[in-house]
């Protein structure tokens, strides 16, 4: 607990969500969307503090929250903390096998599909879409420093991960397998594990929404377009995300 944070962000039992800007209500980062969706699904009181520069975060990554005088980083840690504190227990209806399957799917989404998506951001075609974010960033620094850093950083991250060592054909094949796996988990159900959303739906929606709704062309976006059940799912969960007005 920090006195300085408590003074600056005084409301109790209230979440200050620090996240990237959005373009036409779609956030730049799927991890920010994941947390925002969780807050809206659970009707947790919160407000967004738009932040273009992730270096202000304690771990230099967004999102982070300030909650009751402490900063909490890492989207999964944030969801765990709030779920326990407010006793929303979004996953309580799931048995241990389902929770294990859910965690595995979350890893597929956040540790693999995420890098496939990033790979397409760094292509020339994908990069054109990023330029739409320029007006949301500080002038000059946004265009000549922040965006090129994102592009270079994404390339380095994809290389470190290993995805960009594969051929284009292999990357697309593996990414489509990931998307097919999400669709298989969903089946004909409303949400991944039944009639109620779980924390795993927050991960799945966030990544699919980023791929499909960000104005960044990619073969993954085109692929989701051919999958009506997934499109419905994204649309259904998307209704929980309102324009910034909280």
């Amino acid at each position, binding site marked *: 607990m920090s006195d300085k944070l408590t003074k600056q962000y005084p409301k109790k039992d209230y979440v200050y969500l620090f996240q990237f800007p959005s373009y036409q209500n779609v956030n730049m980062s799927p991890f920010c969307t994941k947390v925002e969706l969780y807050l809206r699904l659970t009707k947790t009181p919160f407000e967004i503090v738009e932040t273009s520069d992730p270096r202000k975060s304690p771990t230099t990554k967004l999102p982070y929250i300030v909650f009751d005088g402490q900063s909490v980083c890492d989207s999964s840690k944030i969801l765990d903390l709030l779920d326990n504190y407010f006793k929303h227990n979004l996953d309580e209806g799931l048995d*241990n096998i389902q*929770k294990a399957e859910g965690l595995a799917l979350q890893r597929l989404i956040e540790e693999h599909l995420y890098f496939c998506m990033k790979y397409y951001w760094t292509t020339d075609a994908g990069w054109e879409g990023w330029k739409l974010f320029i007006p949301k960033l500080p002038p000059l620094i946004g265009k000549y420093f922040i965006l090129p850093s994102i592009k270079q950083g994404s390339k380095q991250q994809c290389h470190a991960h290993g995805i960009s060592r594969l051929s284009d054909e292999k990357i697309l094949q593996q990414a489509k397998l*990931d998307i097919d796996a999400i669709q298989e988990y969903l089946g004909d159900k409303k949400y991944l594990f039944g009639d109620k959303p779980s924390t795993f739906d927050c991960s799945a929606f966030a990544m699919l929404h980023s791929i499909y709704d960000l104005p960044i062309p990619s073969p993954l976006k085109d692929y989701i377009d051919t999958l009506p059940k997934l499109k419905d799912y994204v649309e259904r969960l998307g209704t929980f995300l309102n324009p910034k007005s909280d």
Partner: protein
Amino acid sequence: MTTPKKDHVYLYQFPKDCGLPSPSPFCLKVEILLRLLKLPYNPVELSDPRKAPKGKLPYIELNGETLSDSTVIFERLQQHFGKNLDDSLTTAQKAVRLSFQRLIEDHLYWIMKYSWTTDEGWPGWQVFLPKFPMMVGGFVKSMIRKEAISSCELQGIAKAPINVIWEKGKKDLDALSNYLGQKKYFFGDNPSSLDCSLLGLLLCILYLPIPSPIKDYASGIENLNNYVSSMMNDLFPDFWPLK
């Protein structure tokens, strides 16, 4: 070198160490597949991955073709020899199989790698590195450590606070243990390709002499240890129990 045999796999991998066929989860993954499918093969020891076609181990040679990356290798081997471990899985199980493969190879693997670079783990990891000349050895080793830390940071795992990293690793291990239960293989009575990924990584976490909270936690999970023991007894009687 003698003429390579037809339809015979040459598996280029790190040399045997710590009693294991190889101290690398991806090399082990491929060798486990070769043994599960009873494919004819020879391991070829290579200490320096920079000599590999893509700078990474394992890679294989089969009928004059060189293949890198375990996913590519798996596809090719199963296609060439007409044997696919995952044929008996349902469509739903295949989706779960892929998810757990990602958990193991794209997340828990990175947590293990990170644990090699900490102050606790580094002394143990250093022992594995190739022997460098005395004058430059210390410098080269510290560059290798820095490069590993940097790749963990770029991948993202190292960006979280250290206690959060260990918590995530424990969650992964719990999920694997819960899903496996008391089954012989991950999906029941027959092995799947997931068993290759899982056994490969567990062998490294449990048996490489690199201390970490993840090693301690995994050592305490009974069904995972029994799983390793049972599979190694069946597949690697020439290595098990470890010497």
